């Protein structure tokens, strides 16, 4: 087990290097630091001296990959690639374009993100599976048919509609919760409850329909027929047999997103003014803060790879047939 985890962790390294190379190519080769400086400084007429000053202040005044003028190992380390990309591996994210420490920002902003993402994830999963079980239980009846129709309609509605309509109805018209904002501690609940509810509602359509398909596929298998043939009630068949066996495909989709919860939700956080990592990312995209976007790309891929690893480990916990060697 330990050897397997170690090997998978090592396997993650080339992937992270690949991610790093892609982002480096995207951010520095397609556009030179000069272009970025001109963009950040904003004005159309920028003198070369100003550009040089900006580059020096933000550490872009080094050669890209190979510093021929430096001595010894500094030939490699005194480069944009080393200082901006390789350092991410040591979780040294540096400073954003407006001079703030990115790592410190992330540490304070992850809590609001998690406070919103975890309830949405847990409640959403429970709700989706319950609806899917109900539809599978009443399969091929009108209840199932209209359930699926409702799911298709719900998944055809844009997430933005849920947010805008929910905010208008609940916060503005009925005045039940504040429209947006955030507070620390338990006071956060009244700010979080609406975005969390909207997050759950916007995922219910696609989620329940997906789980329903999984359950129905499982119910067509021979062991279900055997279970029915030996006289088990439909309820026992559903909960003791089908649900347990469907756990494997469910875990494939679910475990991989758990680490990514950390990244927060872009739309919810920006609409409801929650100071999490999602709104941090969106602000960075909108103000074209490349340092922050680069760091978030790195963290995102790291978390995704962690999710893949966790998925494999979770298989061994629910499926005795799977052995990691």
């Amino acid at each position, binding site marked *: 087990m330990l050897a397997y985890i170690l090997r998978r962790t090592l396997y993650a390294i080339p992937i992270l290097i690949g991610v790093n190379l892609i982002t480096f190519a995207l*951010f520095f080769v397609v556009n030179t630091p000069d272009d970025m400086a001109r*963009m950040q400084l904003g004005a159309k007429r920028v003198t070369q001296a100003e550009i040089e000053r900006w580059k020096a202040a933000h550490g872009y005044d080094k050669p890209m990959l190979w510093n021929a003028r430096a001595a010894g190992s500094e030939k490699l380390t005194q480069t944009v690639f080393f200082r901006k990309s390789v350092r991410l591996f040591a979780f040294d994210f540096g400073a954003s374009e407006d001079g703030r420490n990115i790592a410190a920002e992330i540490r304070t902003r992850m809590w609001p993100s998690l406070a919103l993402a975890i309830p949405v994830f847990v409640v959403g999963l429970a709700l989706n599976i319950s609806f899917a079980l109900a539809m599978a239980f009443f*399969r091929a009846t009108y209840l199932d048919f209209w359930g699926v129709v409702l799911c298709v309609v719900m998944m055809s509605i*844009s997430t933005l509609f849920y947010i*805008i309509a929910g905010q208008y109805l609940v916060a503005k018209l009925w005045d039940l919760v504040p429209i947006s904002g955030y507070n620390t501690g338990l006071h956060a609940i009244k700010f979080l409850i609406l975005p969390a509810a909207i997050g759950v509602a916007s995922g219910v359509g696609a989620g329940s329909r997906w789980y329903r398909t999984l359950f129905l596929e499982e119910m067509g298998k021979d062991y279900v027929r055997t279970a029915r043939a030996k006289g088990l009630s439909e309820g026992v068949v559903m909960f003791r047999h089908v649900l347990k066996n469907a756990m494997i495909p469910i875990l494939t989709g679910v475990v991989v997103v758990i680490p990514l919860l950390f990244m927060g939700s872009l739309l919810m956080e920006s609409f409801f003014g929650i100071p999490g990592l999602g709104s941090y990312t969106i602000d960075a995209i909108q103000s*074209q803060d490349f340092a922050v*976007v*680069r760091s978030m*790309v790195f963290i995102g891929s790291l978390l995704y790879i962690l999710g893949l690893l966790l998925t494999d480990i979770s298989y061994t916990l629910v499926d005795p047939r799977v052995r990691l060697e």
Partner: protein
Amino acid sequence: MPFTPVILWTDSLLWLLVAATGAYLWLCARRPHLAAPWLRVARSRAAMVSLTLLAGYGAIGLADSLHFRVALPATAASDAPAYSPQVLSLLDLALSHLRRSEETTYSAPLATRLFTLEETRLPDGRLAREYPRLRYGGAGLASEAGWGADVARRSLAGLAGAALLWLPLGALLWPLRRRAPQIPWGTAYATLGAMLALAGPAFALSLGYHVLGTDTVGQDVLYLSLKSVRTSLVIGSLTTMVMLPLGAMLGVTAGYFRGWVDDLIQYLYTTLNSIPAVLLIAAFVLMMQVYIDGHPQLFPTTAQRADVRLLLLCVILGVTSWTSLARLLRGEALKLAELEYVQAAHALSVSHLRILTRHLLPNVAHIIIISLVLDFSGLVLAEVVLSYVGVGVDPSTVSFGTMINAARLEMAREPVVWWSLSSAFGFLLVLVLAANLLADAVRDGFDPRVRVGPAALQGTAR
């Protein structure tokens, strides 16, 4: 010539796609084994309804994809004809009354007066605050008392026009039913009737009013909604043109050759997959923006710049979304490569390329078609979110995303301006819903598991 055609990149690619679809349908008509799954799809009523709706959207989108520049009135100074810098489409021409009818700001659907109070000078010289009459909406009315009668008269005229168009088409039903009796033509005909019953009065009313109101800068919301259709269709369909070759080629190759080729391709898509899609797209788009801003000489007109940006967005979406198709096809190709007919082809020393194209690709075609149709609605919805985030289409391109983005603060106004958002979301919902229903029917028609699979699945596969 009174006009000169302008061929935008997305136009030519869109028409190429139409031609390719036409060629595929022609092939299907001659090969019964290709036509069989489509006939199964067409047997579903939901599929016929959504196909009719999508055809309507497609007609709007394609009419909006024939661009030209109108000639300016000839001047004595030069003999060479001069053309207006404004790029128009066939749809703009058909709706030119809406394009020109700009008010100053918000007005409610079918309103005759502006939505906001303005200071006006009365004939006797005093200043008064009132809701001024619109320049276009209800301008033909002698007095506002005749509003109800005028709206009713126009609606009825529109309905009558729609009926005149719809009823003769009913004659087509009979030969169609004789040729393919298993297809519910009546459902399609009824859907067409419902669409015309909405479109006819809407068009008749649009000649005198803003049917869906106007937005903050006074543009007609109906016009904007119809213009948005093309952007959605371009994103939904051109993206697949990028995704399909990448995903199909790499996926099948990985599954067929195995070994280091497989490792390399798997590494490639795991790496791409591990970057959160929104961030990867954002990074791409930010870089593209820097490039476009840095090279203004490459893009002479706004329309061309916006068009290149739209095309690049499709490419980017394609690059980030081919991975799931590749993974599916790799799994399938791994299985197929073991089958006897591939082994037999090997034994007969058929080349790798020929095995890939003649034996493997046709046998994974159903997966490709299912995932293309499934992805369409997801891409259309993704455009809306990306445009909201600020990494979507060019701000000058009309799309559902830019419409919603511009209108997102309107619900906070007092009184509420609801028509822009409702129109954008309404048009979007119908498009995505139709695409999703069609995708369901296509999956049921193409997926071999549904037909030979367990009884439980067959019972629910309506």
